[in-house]
């Protein structure tokens, strides 16, 4: 599904290399976790894949289902099935959460040549999905992320994910700022979305989220490259020993 090949990325504004030949492949139906210390390039990876301005790809590439991801506009990537759950979801004053969701869902449907959802169909769908995530009607009416608590913001991201039904979900430190209960809710939401043709790339600093979302593969990112790949036990090792040993092992 997602293939990243020898990706080199630098910041556009300053001459600073962030990713140095990152390669990674996430097959359909799998959950991969990327762990790494601060400054290893985790967030850059998620932004580059979703098409945020400010980064320059100097070498390598990435494809989604064989399509050149980096050649597409952010909205085209979304329509192609890519979704990024933001570490810091953005507030949009005055725009109702429901309006935002419907605009997004219909924009993607339109881009894919599908019929737009009517208000009635949409409402039914969003209410059902919101209920699973314990998002109440009030939160759907409030402006996007404005005045939301940390937990509400992250649940809202998962609601968007559930509504947009992407094929490839990238979760950028979704666990940051969540208490245990909120994390369980988010994890349950994600687990409910797991399926044979949907993949996840879970970017996280800590192992604890991976207790709730069981990964198939764990990668350790350092200095802009994957330095070690293993099973779920690798995450446990990081939790117990920190990154030190793995980093020195990789030289």
């Amino acid at each position, binding site marked *: 599904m997602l293939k990243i090949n020898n990706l080199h990325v630098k910041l556009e504004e300053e001459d600073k290399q962030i990713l140095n030949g990152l390669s990674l492949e996430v097959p359909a139906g799998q959950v991969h976790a990327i762990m790494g210390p601060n400054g290893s390039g985790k967030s850059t990876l998620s932004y580059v894949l*979703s*098409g*945020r*301005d400010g980064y320059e790809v100097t070498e390598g590439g990435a494809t989604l289902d064989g399509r050149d991801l980096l050649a597409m*506009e*952010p*909205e085209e*990537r*979304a*329509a192609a099935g890519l*979704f*990024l759950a*933001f570490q810091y*979801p*953005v*507030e*949009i*004053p*005055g*725009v109702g959460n429901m*309006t*935002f969701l419907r*605009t*997004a*869902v219909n*924009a*993607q449907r339109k*881009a894919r040549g599908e019929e737009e959802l009517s208000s009635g169909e949409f409402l039914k769908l969003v209410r059902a999905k919101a209920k699973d995530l314990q998002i109440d009607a009030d939160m759907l009416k409030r*402006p996007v992320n404005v005045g939301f608590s940390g937990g509400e913001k992250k649940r809202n991201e998962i609601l*968007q994910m559930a509504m*947009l039904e992407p094929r490839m979900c990238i979760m950028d430190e979704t666990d940051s700022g969540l208490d245990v209960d909120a994390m369980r809710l988010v994890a349950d939401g994600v687990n409910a979305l797991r399926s044979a043709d949907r993949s996840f790339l879970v970017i996280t600093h800590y192992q604890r989220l991976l207790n709730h979302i069981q990964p198939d593969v764990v990668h350790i990112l350092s200095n802009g490259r994957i330095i070690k790949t293993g099973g779920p036990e690798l995450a446990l090792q990081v939790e117990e020993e920190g990154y030190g040993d793995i980093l020195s092992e990789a030289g």
Partner: protein
Amino acid sequence: MTEITDLDVRDGVDRETVETVQNMGSYKYGWNTEIEMDFAPKGVNEDIVRLISQKNEEPEWMTEWRLDAYRRWVTMSEPRWAMLNYPDIDYQDQYYYARPKSMEVKPKSLDEVDPTLLATYEKLGIPLKEQMILAGVEGAEETPAEARKVAVDAVFDSVSLGTTFKDELAKAGVIFCPISEAIREHPELVKKYLGSVVPQSDNFFATLNSAVFSDGSFVYVPPGVRCPMELSTYFRINAENTGQFERTLIIADKGSYVSYLEGCTAPKRDTHQLHAAVVEIVILEDAEVKYSTVQNWYPGDEEGKGGIYNFVTKRADCREARAKVMWTQVETGSAITWKYPSCILRGEEAQGEFYSIAIANNFQQADTGTKMIHLGRNTRSRIVSKGISAGQAQNTYRGLVSMHPRATNSRNYTQCDSLLIGDKCGAHTVPYIEVKNTSSRVEHEATTSKVDDDQLFYCRSRGMDEEEAVALVVNGFCREVLQALPMEFAMEAQSLVAISLEGSVG
């Protein structure tokens, strides 16, 4: 009527025009070349004023009223204090009267009506039956009415084309008709109120309007009557080099209520077109008027060529106790906008509200705002202004809040927000505040912000394209004002916001 955009008329109408002017005997210059079209000759002078008056079959007092205005106008000079930059307007190079092809031959069905005309009606959300009536389709009046009711008066260039739902309104005692008709049929009302809010000598543009206004809408809601439907006027400038000068007079008698919508469009022209309208609203004791405008005059192209020069005087007089007015405007069009819908809060406890969205893109310039003149005790006013600038546009909010010595315990709250898209546009806020008593309170809040890249990226990462994303963010910025609009208009306004900002990013 079917070829309304194409004024190559040589039917009865222009012969009549020729005769009228010939009978007056003084204006002949340039006449023959101009007669090919159904225009009065270019320029303005006393004869043109008389011609317009005569065309509308006005009584003598009205002709004199106009001439009085004209004589004042020639002594006045154009105001230049606004933050607007435009070349001098040659007032003698405009047509002051243009009339669509004679409506003698009526289309049999909607199929025969100019599709662009119907499309414009449709865009304004005018139901089919009213479209038929407005387009002059035979037998339209007998067609059963649809569920939603908005009575519509349409003014093309200088002439009112027709008003719908007249009978039903008449049953409620509401008069809604072209002002030309009101001058003939209801002279006592017109005499009493015309110019009582915006006097003939008010300002350069209003005075010009007083002299040459050709038509417009007239509304009278009798005491205690809640107008059974929303009233709507649709203005369109069609003909080239034609100024449009419509005049609207609304009178809400004691304890009455009316909601009035105004929509404006104009076709694309390379040359600038002049629009100088006057709207007067008189509100008596306990009455309430809501006046909503979606102004979508042609703004000119991306290089600033063409577009409407919009110089409009709108004023409501809350003449008696507890009178209430609410102005809501969405200004997306015009190359130049000079417009300050104002409230005179004369009666005790009178209330004025002003909600405005002004969008300026490309080379558009807008200098708009409101005046809240507090004269009575315990009067209240509220101003919410949202200015959006994109491209190389300049957007100025200019507002006056004035608390007179007798307006004790009065209050005003003003909120002025500006949003910038791109780095070549400008937003300016010029509030004037005068408080002449010690018990009144005036609050002013202003913010300026830029459309945030993070917001746009967030929207785009969810599948919206850049323009959709900008429209969404901007609509969010305008929400308080959009909510003040009647439902149908709010939808129209939202999509207009999106259209106006097309090409403003990237």
